[in-house]
């Protein structure tokens, strides 16, 4: 997909802009010409009426030109803002469809930059930058034409000076363009150091690494300003050289003009106008450097946006609507590795069935694939081989929307959004009544602390829940999932920050209120899972054992190990 497609709906406007600018610039270009007439035919011929007539003509032209310019300005903004809006909508829409492996690859930070800075840069390109370029081009070529039409002999000066100018500019761009890119990467580096320090402030302070971080930052900062300085120095060198060429051209014009005038081949006013034109031509060349800088930046941004727009979600929606609410899950010979890590399988030959209303817990060592396994169910990632069925059909045959609407997934990291407690809970079901919200909060053991806030359910959650404790965040996340009234509830180590008493109450409430819901949970504490209908023990991506707590205690050494690590003394004490 090309970004040009987003211009299409507004192509009339986008064509109109340069047209209006032609009017504006033409009007400008004629001013020195008319001025030369005032001097040559008016002043030197002592013809006052001609001076007045030409003056009025110039006024008219100035008005037309101003009108043209203003129209171009207004139309240009309408066109570029509309284009920018469409592009932004489309890109955001695309991002909202991406699969996790793709957002992982882009990284969230980069996606945010693409959606904000990059689109703004492209939008600017479509208006100010383009207008500047059109203006520069017209001034350049228009100036040449006008100058030659004054007197062809001035062409001699152009033939000498233009190639030098062009050569100089090409040389500069050739030297500068890699530097522009370098500036961008160096800026990214500065940003990432700041980002790490803002988010990791506690660790930096705890290890008294402020000085280290400061020196790290200084280094990044110095690298950035050095590169910036190099770019600016290049510019600072180019401009005076261009000015020398320009000024010598002016002197040449006066010199040639002098002799030509003496020979009656030329008139004084023409010499004066020629000076104005050559200044204009060479000035427009000087702004090319600036243009190029803006253009390269916008071009880089455009390709970054194109990259997002051209990424099609790898996880595609199926056709069927999932309607039945039984929640029967079956894993058949499922193997999985993260995209790009073929040689590091995460899950291998996983097979098991979860019956409707059953509670299945998954236990295993750090990095054994527990989270990965859960994430396959709502198709956050797709299996590599084997299949997962839900209520008898492959989950890939259902539409993503209907599949996910039947699953309440509580992530390991509870993410809350700016807004009130109520607004956050409503994510589960935007049509929920107050009654339902309270009920969900009660089950999740969240109501007590919510009511402790000044405004209860209408209290505002700030900065992604920074004002809440870990356990409070987890309980809100659980309430949100319960409110969804799902057929399947998935807890990915989602109760780790709850104290034991609260967790037990939550379990009791779930058992009471959500009898028919299939529950899959990952947890570390035996107490959290021991009453599950079945427990799967994962070891290195394979199911090492499965059964009830009591069965596993008898049959599985690994499970006993885990159990002992948590309970060894109690068994004897209470046994």
């Amino acid at each position: 997909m090309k970004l040009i497609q987003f211009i299409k709906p507004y192509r009339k406007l986008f064509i109109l802009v340069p047209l209006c600018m032609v009017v504006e610039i033409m009007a400008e270009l004629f001013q020195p010409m008319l001025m030369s007439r005032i001097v040559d035919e008016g002043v030197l011929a002592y013809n006052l009426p001609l001076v007045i007539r030409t003056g009025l003509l110039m006024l008219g032209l100035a008005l037309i030109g101003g009108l043209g310019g203003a129209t171009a300005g207004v139309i240009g903004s309408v066109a570029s803002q509309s284009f920018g809006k469409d592009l932004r909508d489309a890109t955001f829409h695309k991002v909202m469809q991406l699969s996790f492996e793709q957002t992982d690859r882009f990284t969230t930070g980069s996606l945010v930059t693409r959606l904000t800075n990059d689109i703004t840069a492209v939008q600017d390109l479509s208006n100010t930058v383009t207008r500047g370029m059109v203006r520069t081009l017209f001034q350049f070529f228009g100036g040449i034409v006008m100058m030659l039409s004054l007197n062809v002999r001035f062409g001699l000066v152009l033939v000498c000076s233009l190639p030098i100018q062009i050569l100089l500019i090409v040389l500069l761009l050739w030297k500068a363009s890699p530097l522009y890119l370098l500036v961008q990467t160096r800026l990214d580096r500065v940003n990432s150091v700041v980002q790490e320090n803002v988010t990791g402030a506690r660790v930096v302070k705890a290890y008294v690494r402020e000085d280290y971080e400061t020196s790290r930052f200084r280094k990044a900062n110095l690298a950035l300003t050095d590169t910036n300085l190099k770019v600016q120095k290049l510019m600072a060198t180019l401009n005076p050289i261009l000015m020398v060429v320009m000024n010598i051209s002016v002197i040449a014009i006066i010199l040639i003009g002098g002799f030509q005038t003496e020979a009656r081949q030329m008139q004084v006013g023409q010499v004066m106008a020629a000076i104005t034109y050559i200044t204009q031509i060479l000035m427009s060349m000087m702004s090319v450097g600036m243009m190029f800088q803006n253009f390269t930046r916008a071009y880089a941004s455009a390709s970054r946006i194109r990259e997002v727009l051209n990424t099609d979600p790898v996880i595609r929606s199926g056709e069927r609507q999932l309607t039945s609410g039984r929640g029967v899950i079956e894993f058949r010979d499922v193997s999985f590795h993260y995209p790009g890590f073929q040689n590091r399988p995460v899950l291998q030959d996983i097979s098991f069935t979860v019956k409707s209303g059953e509670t299945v817990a998954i236990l295993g060592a750090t990095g054994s694939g527990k989270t990965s396994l859960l994430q396959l169910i709502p198709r956050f990632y797709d299996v590599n081989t084997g299949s997962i069925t839900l209520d008898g059909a492959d989950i890939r045959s259902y539409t993503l929307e209907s599949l996910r609407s039947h699953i309440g997934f509580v992530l390991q990291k509870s993410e809350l959004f700016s807004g009130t407690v109520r607004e956050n809970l409503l994510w589960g079901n935007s049509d929920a009544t107050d009654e339902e919200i309270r009920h969900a909060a009660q089950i999740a053991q969240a109501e007590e602390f919510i009511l402790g806030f000044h405004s209860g359910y209408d209290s505002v959650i700030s900065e992604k829940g920074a004002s809440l404790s870990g356990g409070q965040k987890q309980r809100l996340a659980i309430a949100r999932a319960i409110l969804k009234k799902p057929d399947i509830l998935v807890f990915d180590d989602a109760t780790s920050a709850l104290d034991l008493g609260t967790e037990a109450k939550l379990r009791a409430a779930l058992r009471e209120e959500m009898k028919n819901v299939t529950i899959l949970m990952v947890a570390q504490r035996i107490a959290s899972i021991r009453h599950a209908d079945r427990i799967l023990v994962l070891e290195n991506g394979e199911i090492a054992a499965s059964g009830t707590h009591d069965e596993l205690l008898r049959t599985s050494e690994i499970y006993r190990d885990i159990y002992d690590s948590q309970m060894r003394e109690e068994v004897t004490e209470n046994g």
Partner: protein
Amino acid sequence: MADTNPPRVPIGPGRRGGPPGAVTVEKAQNVKGTAKRLLIYLGKSKRLLFILLGVVLIVTLLGLLAPVLQQRAIDVIAACVQTNLPLQVERLLRLLVLLLISYLLSSFCTFIQGIAAANLSQNTVRTMRDDLFIRLSRLPIKYLDTHPHGDIMSRMTNDVESISNTVSTSIASLISGSLTVVGTLIIMLIYSPLLTLISMITVLLTVLVTTRMSRYMRKYFPKQQKYLGILNGHIEEMVIGYRTVVAFGREEEAEHQFGSINKKLKKYGIRAQALGGTMGPLMMFISNLGFLIIAAFGGWFAIEGWISVGTIAAFIQYSKQFTRPLHELANQYAQIQTAIAGAERVFAVMDEKSEIDEGNVPHTAEDVIGNIDFSHIHFSYKEGEPVLKDFDLQVKPGETVALVGATGSGKTTVVNLLTRFYEVDQGVIRLDDIPIREIKKDELRKSIAIVLQDTVIFADTIANNIRYGREDATDEAVVRAARLARVDRFAERMNEGYDTMLTEGGGNLSQGQRQLIAIARAVLADPKILILDEATSNIDTRTEVYIQEAMIALMKGRTSLIIAHRLSTIRDADRIIVLEDGKIAEAGSHEQLLAQKGCYYRLYQNQFAGFAT
């Protein structure tokens, strides 16, 4: 990504600020004061500033001289037409040589000016960014806990960047501009007071239009910026929370909300940009008007014989020179506004109080024995909502104390106070009988290693992430710490082993693996006091037991504080403290507390009895 159980700053209405990460370009509150401080920053490079001033002065004077020479040359040519005498070639050449010299000199000075301006702006910006970062790294945790991170980031980057751009483009043009205006005016008056007066019409128009337009711009530009800020906030939130968005099928709602903000942005964007877009042509129109006024009136005056033809040529140049600085100012108006508002936001951070460090007792990390004493501590994050009430706790050197209690009972607060992330409201915390306020903060913190639940991983190699605990650690020490924390198990399986680069969010690791790295970091730090705040919550219990056994050996003779929900984690502690409502409800060993049949017993029953309660 907050790196802890954040403090419980009570939430409620009234905290509804801007959206996170909003980049609102407000109008500066105190333009004069801010500009003055900016100037002080520029003044730090005095030599550059003087060079810049010097060459700008020369360039400006030469700029005033050139049109005079041009005018004389034109007059020589015109004279030959008017008088029908042969061209005074010698005179013309002499003038042109003078002109050439002045041009060359001016170009050379422009070169120096450009280099000086570049150096000045980059120096200024670098110093400013460095200062800001140093200030940032010394800010109390409280500041970072209560301010949107996106906003802090944006001050560091966007705001400083906009100051940088403005300084490099505007400073030289402001100085030369004001000099040019004065000089040009004088020369124009000398040439022809009448023509000067008439051409002042354009100046009047410029001023009138600029003030009128800027009044509208001031109305729409901030609105555009505001909606851009809201939109960026929405993008950030939805992209960062994308997993939750997908899990709850909220993609469409997110897009819908995005669309409606985007529409508003477009509306105000068109207004603001259209205004900005007409500004240029308007200025051009005024400039053309000036051109024709001089051509027409000049022509008339020349016919009357009041001025020469060359004067017209000179006037055209001078009037351009005269209005150019005004146009530049008008064009840069929005930019300068944004830069000053940005500078104000930057200075606001610099004016924040940094962490207090009045410690002067020579008690270094090596001297620390590890005797901790909390006595009569009162603390609240927000007035009227105490978290700790008359909290008392003594920890002997080498003792392991576990803090347990319901979420929000104040466990993390104890850690926040001991490390002086926050300051107590009342009471004294002593380390080895010295109030911690009197110990240098750096030494205090060096004696403590802390592992938090939400681990911080830096965009660096695994080895360097561990080495964060002690900069000068040898490779062997790093590997030893990694073994102890069981990092070796997954690190050695990675393609590049310990040199594998980790992403900033630690994306290629599981939560548990990230915690293991954080533990290795603390082990390497080799502190006198160890604090584990839910440090093993995502680690499976078998790995945990292994680590704990290794740690116990390591921690012999050191003091440790452990916060955890798992009884398995805390059972072996010398003493268990049960916190309830900001006070100590129970204290004692595991066996003692069980025998008491109090709240610990109930917690324990919950864990062991599971669903039975």
